[in-house]
């Protein structure tokens, strides 16, 4: 056993070097805060790649016919866009960045339960990302199956699919380890006196998310392995020519990939549940209802995968069941929205950037959620299935929901993470430009879908032209907003004015430690007394 080394309590995690120097003090660090930033930066890079691919698709769709790329390049672009955005950004995003940074601090711990495993998860993440990039750069042809890797095309296509599939598998493994780490951390390392019902809501959502990561990801893992083996050896399980069933692939894929939507959205809801009480300066309304709805979403979300396959061929009974279960998920989501709005009611609201993001989150989440009901009903789903309507719906949820929550979270916790404040005027400008661009980009797709424009086509009929122009213009406005946001944040991380330890007057534990926090977070382990709680305002 090593001799205990003293770790200073008044040196921030950004300055403390440990035993390594330079870049090694980051990539060998087991400090949860440094790992969070490693994730943040690696995701930022992949996110920008994904955004550029998205912009390329919108540019292609500015006019009917070929604009900048061939049909098969378009297939490759939407595949890589999907794989990057889903497996590298929105699934791991909030847990890996904000979960890592804040979970231990919010529950009063020095680190996560398994710090080395935490660092390993980041390495696995990078390996997965490199594999996906390798599938683009090498081999004959970029993967063109869509991010869902549907059988039988995924083992018939001649493109370089294996590294991408394996990359998705590896990224899933990283996600499992993060979830496992968080669950154990929450069980074992809460501060003395912090009972389950006194735990802040963001850790609660991470807890729910951890369980979904753990219970759903292995299923897609084995499914992806099987597709790879099918490609290499021709084992037959998904190949109709050898007796297999490609629909079974879709079932197994969505058994994971629908719960994955809740892996994405739950921590986003958690971040919103932290931001709103702080900027309303009021105890969160219906704490227990929010916790219960978090667990309900995690649970029911496991049983709704079939709604992705209403037109793929399943029995009427299965269709009704999946449709009913899908409607059930809407209830806990609506409970949360009700609670957020009620938290604001009679609060003293401060209009700061994080609050704007949170409010617009509720707006886009409502649109995304309600359009989801259109897709969850059998009759209407058959009509809009595989149209631009679906694309609009899941971008409102996944980009609007998760993305807005992510930006809200980064503007909320930025002073804590970097110890500096950003330019609020510029941040607000970035938000409004981004918000307007977002709506202009995705709202026309609802209309296009209702009118019958299919998704995943690089071409369309002339009557869809006007709405597509609006959508493409929207993508430029949104990208411009994104540039403002990123420049502001990057500049402020280095040169912004020093931030106070509690600039927003928050009541959760992360606001009791200095900004940026010292290496082991707390000089003394905090203790929750009888009357203490995470949202005790007044």
């Amino acid at each position, binding site marked *: *056993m090593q001799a*205990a*080394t*003293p*770790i*200073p*309590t*008044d*040196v921030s995690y950004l300055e403390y070097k440990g035993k390594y120097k330079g870049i090694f003090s980051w990539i060998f660090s087991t400090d949860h805060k440094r790992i969070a930033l490693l994730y943040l930066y690696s995701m930022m890079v992949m996110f920008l790649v994904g955004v550029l691919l998205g912009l390329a698709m919108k540019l292609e769709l500015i006019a009917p016919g070929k604009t900048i790329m061939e049909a098969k390049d378009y297939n490759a672009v939407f595949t890589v866009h999907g794989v990057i955005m889903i497996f590298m950004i929105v699934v791991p995003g909030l847990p890996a960045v904000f979960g890592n940074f804040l979970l231990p601090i919010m529950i009063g711990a020095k*680190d996560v*339960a*398994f710090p080395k*495993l935490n660092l390993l998860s980041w390495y696995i993440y990078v390996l997965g990302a490199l594999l996906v990039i390798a599938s683009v750069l090498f081999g004959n042809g970029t993967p063109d199956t869509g991010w869902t890797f549907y059988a039988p095309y995924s083992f018939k296509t001649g493109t370089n699919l294996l590294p991408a599939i394996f990359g998705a598998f590896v990224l899933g493994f990283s996600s*499992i380890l993060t979830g*496992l*780490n968080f*669950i*154990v951390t929450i*069980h*074992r*390392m809460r501060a003395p006196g912090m009972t389950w019902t006194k735990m802040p809501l963001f850790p609660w959502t991470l807890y729910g998310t951890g369980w979904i990561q*753990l*219970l*759903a*990801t*292995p*299923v897609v*893992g*084995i*499914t992806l*392995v*099987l597709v790879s*083996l099918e490609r290499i*050896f*021709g*084992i*037959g*399980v998904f190949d109709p020519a*050898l*007796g*297999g*069933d490609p629909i*079974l692939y879709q079932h*197994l894929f969505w*058994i994971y990939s629908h719960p994955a939507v809740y892996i994405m959205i739950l921590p986003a809801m958690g971040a919103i549940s932290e931001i709103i009480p702080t900027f309303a300066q009021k105890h969160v309304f219906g704490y227990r209802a929010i916790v219960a709805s978090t667990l309900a979403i995690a649970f029911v979300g496991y049983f709704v995968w079939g709604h992705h396959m209403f037109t793929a061929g399943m029995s009427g009974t299965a269709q009704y069941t999946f449709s009913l279960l899908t409607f059930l998920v809407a209830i806990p989501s609506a409970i949360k929205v009700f609670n957020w709005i009620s938290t604001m009611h009679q609060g003293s609201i401060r209009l700061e950037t994080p609050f704007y993001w949170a409010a617009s989150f509720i707006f886009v989440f409502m649109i995304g959620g309600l359009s989801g009901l259109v897709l969850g009903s059998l009759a209407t789903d058959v009509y809009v299935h595989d149209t631009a309507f679906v694309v609009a719906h899941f971008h409102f949820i996944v980009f609007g929901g998760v993305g807005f929550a992510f930006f809200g979270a980064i503007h909320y916790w930025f002073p804590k993470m970097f110890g500096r404040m950003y330019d609020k005027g510029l941040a607000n400008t970035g938000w409004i430009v981004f918000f307007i661009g977002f709506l202009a980009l995705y709202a026309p797709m609802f209309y296009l879908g209702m009118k019958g424009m299919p998704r995943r086509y690089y071409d369309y009929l002339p009557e869809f032209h006007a709405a597509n122009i609006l959508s493409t213009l929207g993508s430029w406005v949104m990208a411009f907003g994104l540039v403002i946001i990123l420049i502001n944040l990057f500049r402020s991380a280095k040169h912004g004015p020093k931030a106070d330890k509690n600039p927003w007057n928050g009541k959760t534990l992360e606001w009791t430690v200095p900004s940026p926090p010292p290496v*082991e977070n707390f*000089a003394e382990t905090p203790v929750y007394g009888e009357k203490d709680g995470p949202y005790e305002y007044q």
Partner: protein
Amino acid sequence: MEHTVHQTHDHYDPEASKIGMWLFIFTELLLFGGLFVIYSVYRFLNPEAFHLAAEELNRAIGTINTIILLVSSATIAMATSAIQKNNKRQTLLLMLVTVLLALTFLVNKYFEWGAKFGHGIFPGSEHMIQTMSKGEILFFGLYFIMTGLHALHIIIGMAFIIFVMVLTARGKIHSERFALLENSGLYWHLVDVIWIFLFPLFYLIH
């Protein structure tokens, strides 16, 4: 500048590592769970073919391998008891026996698979496509995937146990601190339990 310092505690929480291991075991069960689902679907759709194909498997080797794994599970459990009595020699010996049994299992598996390959039964074989029904092809496809993935887990388990042996030999694992040894045992039991399901599904039921 003077720093206010405090001691870093040695974060040893055996309870946490055990919870972690159990959670990981859940994920492994679900990994195989996907395969068991596929197996049940195709067995339900092709009962005759699965019956015919199962006749081809060597039940004797399957039984021997089952016994080997059961004994190895016992030895690793005994190793956990031995370390609690601080009997390092006995612990190492029992772990060595476990690893040797695992190796024997793999050797048997090698001969079993080799015999199948010799008869032209392997994934993607022309012989299978020409002479077998679709159900039989699926049976053997699943047989190779599931026993193959299980064999991979045997190898991982062996590596895990050898790693723990090294730590035990160096005195890092002792009667006060043996969560890792216990975890390697838990993992080994998982590998064993999966085989307990694979064995009847492929070799016994008709």
